[in-house]
């Protein structure tokens, strides 16, 4: 059996990739996908931990996270669509009228 540490390391790597994606990419959609990556990294960790302690708690939690993420997607996409309608762009760097 693969030790749980491997999963955790993998999830950590995924998480960091997600974070860096948010930091580096300018496309709102891709940033959004990176966030999903972060959430999924967490999911991976939870599932891994859950399997170690032989508990369903982790898996249940993952379902919750997935559901919430779906809800977020709905709202997020709607927002992006709105922005695109008015700005004709989803480059987050162009959204900088609020500052100071």
């Amino acid at each position, binding site marked *: 059996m693969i030790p749980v540490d491997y999963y955790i390391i993998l*999830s950590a790597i995924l998480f960091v990739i997600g974070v860096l994606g948010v930091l580096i990419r300018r496309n709102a959609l891709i940033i959004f996908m990176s966030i999903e990556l972060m959430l999924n*990294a*967490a999911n991976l960790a939870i599932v891994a931990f859950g399997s170690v302690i032989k508990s369903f708690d982790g898996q*249940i*939690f993952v379902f919750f996270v997935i559901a*919430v993420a779906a809800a977020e997607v709905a709202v997020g996409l709607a*927002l992006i669509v709105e922005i695109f309608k008015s700005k004709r762009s989803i480059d987050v760097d162009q959204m900088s009228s*609020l500052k100071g």
Partner: protein
Amino acid sequence: MNQFDLTTILPITILTVWACVLLLVDLFIPKTRKGITALLSALGLAATLGFTLSQIGMEDSGFNGMVALDGFSTFVNALLLVSGLLGVALAYGYVKRMGIERGEYYTLLLFSVVGMMLMAQATDLIVVFLALELLSIPLYVLAAFSRPKTDSEEAGLKYFLLGAFSSGFLVYGIALIFGATQSTNIFAIVESASTSTSNLLLTIGAALLLIGFGFKVAAVPFHMWTPDVYQGAPTAVTAFMSSGAKIAGFAALLRVFATAFPAIATDMTDVLWVLSAATMIVGNVVAIAQTDIKRLLAYSSIAHAGYILMVFVPYGNENVVATSVAAGLFYLVSYAFTNFGAWGVVIALEKKEGKGLALNDYAGLSKRHPALAAAMAVFMLSLIGLPPTIGLIGKIYLFRAVIDAGFVWLAIIGVLTSLVSAFYYLRVIVVMYMKDGEPTAEREPWLDMTTAVTALVTVIVSFVPQFLFAWASDAVLKLF
């Protein structure tokens, strides 16, 4: 699930159901008369508030320890519901004036309140996460409610992206905690944590959790979104968001940290100390340079988060934690009322197209609208922490707790930064009272009433704070 389980979340249930019903009812309300929706939602909030108040003194736990009903939650829920009511009252005329009067506004607001209330009651990290998202998602939408105004959309998107980003950390934190303690229930966590030897995983998890909450309450350095979002969002939303989200965030932070992580308090204390100090300093210092009242209040809101954060610093010290938390609760109340009042005045002066928000637009207000100016002056004094306002009492309570716990230097930073804050709050008064101008303000009955009520509460409670003191300290009694 039994009836006790339902009792524990009775107010939440009522409000949720009401919100769902309202969503449907709203369809049948004509576009020009969305005020009815507002009234109905206020009614729902008021009814829920009634139920919540009836629960004072009740202690219960439901859904296998997933949620708790105790003095703390009741206190926070009541405060949240009042905030909701004030939020509705502020929005009533505002949305009409700004041409964004749509029924969903109130429904979303109700759902957000539900999330906040759940947050205060959550005793399981899963529920915390759920509640957080439940309160956040409607706020993302509300922030962008003025669409197609770019500012509002931008605010919504920024809030959303960063909010989701920070909940990523939160979830990962929960995952690590789960790994470290094999549970997500805060009572189980504390037991597990006290037996285990290595806490690194738990510590990191807790830190990530802290970051998630820190984002919600706008603690430095997770505060960057605040001014932009507060500025871009419709003012009525900002008002609600700045109070409600903060209350909920702090409530969860209080409960989770005080209950689940006393074992790692020594580590966290330093972090919290720095967070609190940094938040107070940055919030207040940056606020000085603001010329836009919304941004000014946004930074003020950051700064106040810093003050409240002070009460977390000694959370591991059993002797003082109760006082601290009670002080934090009281401060939340004082901040909520003052803050709503101040935003109310901002709303009264705001014009379409984002006009009327510069500080200079307040020039001469005391001559044209003396009552409004007086109210704003009271709010500003309260935010500074001067008599005769509740802000002073709140600050004194906070500082007492901090001194009690022995963090004198933090208290000194606190008072010094409030001195700094006096500078920009006073500028508002200066502009209103000592400069000449011809400001115009909207005088809507509900808005006026909100402002008046908050102003009166701000002043009167400062003379008789003992009842709230008592309630706040009772509320935390059973928490530990």
